[in-house]
């Protein structure tokens, strides 16, 4: 009897599928074109630009002071650090000396911002992987930070809370006490997150060994911030090129060992503690004095160009600004967005992993599309 030859039931070709831009786990309007071999990702191409608003072009036609407002809209979950990077770059161009009190307030604000940003990251990253509880915990504490910001500058998301030359207002009466109270609360809550995740078997299986990147590769592809440090590279702009009042602060840089998703989680978790440590020192040592330097009414930095970087919650946020010395707006305004550079590394991270891990890996690099696309 002749037998029919065995036939494969399904095609075994590689398949290209599209993920996003309306996919809930892509944190905005990120579109990924994935080439799959069964469940395994062979290659990945990120398609970005859906949120492109031409921030750089727009800033080249606005006054120096108006731009602070536009920088809020880039990384909209960390507006204070965006403000800080911009005003410091202009101050560097103008060689302005900012009063120490303003420097300390800026340090407190940007560390509060880092805590808020990391809380949102922790919540959404865990929710992507399936631990929804952490999202509710994270948003609960983030609310407290937003309340502090609201008390300081009146806004809860787009703060516009810094000016060229200093701070627009002094801290409200009793605000420093409430900041310290928040640090206490946050310190108590951190073990709760750790209890939920750090030794959770499902969490560990979903994150350990996923998206390993070596230190050399991470430097080459231009990763910055926590993903770079999780690969074991000691690189933090706050320590290496101190700005604001960081030179006077005592803190450690947590680094990872393996460079996988679990390490990136541990690094960020430790950064909470270090941020709270910095906030405490800055509040305790808050000097008296002016909060605004002597700034001309019309801001016109002398002709020249400069690049200045700060450590935003997501990594190295750099501004390259050229001034022509005559007009009221920058001649060239360029932002080096940390999310953009980290997203570039995604292709290297996802190769060879399961499609379900792609979701975890988008979460772990912590992108905000408003900043990627600008």
């Amino acid at each position: 009897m002749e037998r029919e030859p065995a036939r494969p039931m399904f095609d075994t070709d590689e398949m290209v599928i599209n993920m996003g831009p309306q996919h809930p786990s892509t944190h905005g309007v990120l579109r990924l074109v994935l080439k799959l071999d069964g469940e395994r990702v062979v290659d990945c191409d990120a398609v970005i630009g859906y949120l492109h608003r031409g921030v750089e072009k727009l800033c080249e036609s606005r006054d120096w002071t108006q731009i602070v407002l536009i920088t809020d809209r880039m990384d909209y979950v960390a507006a204070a650090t965006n403000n800080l990077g911009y005003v410091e770059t202009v101050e560097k161009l103008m060689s302005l000396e900012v009063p120490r009190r303003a420097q300390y307030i800026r340090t407190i604000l940007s560390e509060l911002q880092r805590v808020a940003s990391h809380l949102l990251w922790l919540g959404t990253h865990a929710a992507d992987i399936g631990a929804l509880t952490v999202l509710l915990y994270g948003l609960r504490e983030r609310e407290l930070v937003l309340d502090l910001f609201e008390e300081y500058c009146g806004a809860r998301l787009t703060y516009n809370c810094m000016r060229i030359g200093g701070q627009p207002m002094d801290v409200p009466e009793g605000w420093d006490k409430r900041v310290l109270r928040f640090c206490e609360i946050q310190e108590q809550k951190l073990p709760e997150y750790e209890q939920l995740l750090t030794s959770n078997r499902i969490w560990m299986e979903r994150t350990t060994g996923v998206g390993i990147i070596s230190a050399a590769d991470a430097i080459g592809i231009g990763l910055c911030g926590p993903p770079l440090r999780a690969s074991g590279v000691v690189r933090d702009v706050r320590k290496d090129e101190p700005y604001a009042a960081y030179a006077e602060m005592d803190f450690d840089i947590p680094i990872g060992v393996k460079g996988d998703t679990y390490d990136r989680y541990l690094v960020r978790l430790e950064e909470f503690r270090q941020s709270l440590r910095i906030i405490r020192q800055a509040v305790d040592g808050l000097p008296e004095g002016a909060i605004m330097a002597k700034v001309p009414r019309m801001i016109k930095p002398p002709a020249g160009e400069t690049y200045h970087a700060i450590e935003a919650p997501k990594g190295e946020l750099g501004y390259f600004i050229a001034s022509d010395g005559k007009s009221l707006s920058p001649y060239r305004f360029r932002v080096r967005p940390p999310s953009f550079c980290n997203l570039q590394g995604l292709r290297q991270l996802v190769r060879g992993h399961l499609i379900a891990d792609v979701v975890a890996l988008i979460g772990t690099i912590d992108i905000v599309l408003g900043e990627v696309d600008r």
Partner: protein
Amino acid sequence: MPEELKFVPPDQAPPAETPIPPFIAALQAGVPGAVEQVSFWVGDWTVIVAPGRLIEVATFLRDAPACAFNYLSDLTASDWPARSDKRFDVILCLYSIGLRHRLRVKVRLADGESVPSVTGLWPAANWLEREVYDMFGVSFAGHPDLRRILMPLDWQGHPQRKDYPLEGPGELLMESPQDWLKAKQTAVEADIE
């Protein structure tokens, strides 16, 4: 030309009392004649090199122990229409994670001239060069995947050029959506045929 575009970058020479940092001295000794100009402003050092020697200079800067610029912080460009022969600046912001110093490398280019890609040295340059290509129309020779990144793939023009209007190329979609739709449908039908 409007008044604000009649400006060329000053590229200030370093003051006499400021010593040249060791990494620039090493570069001048290691790749003789490549550095056309050294500039210094508010604490930042910049070297200006010819496009033809960029790869040589970049390789030296990355590998020489006195330089060790292993991290490409940023790669961008700026447009100076007043400098009619060499309109564009392509700027590499380099950082050394081990030695903690910074340097900018600048290449001056004419419109239509291409610059060698540094993706072979720093893979991070991939998207950054795509963005410069998208925004300025500067092409990078040897780039593995040079296509637009932020603007739609079928976009005409390069928005960050100074002669590109802030409002965009025209507001057909905003002013008369019906005409825009008709033009789009005609294009799609022509495509199908």
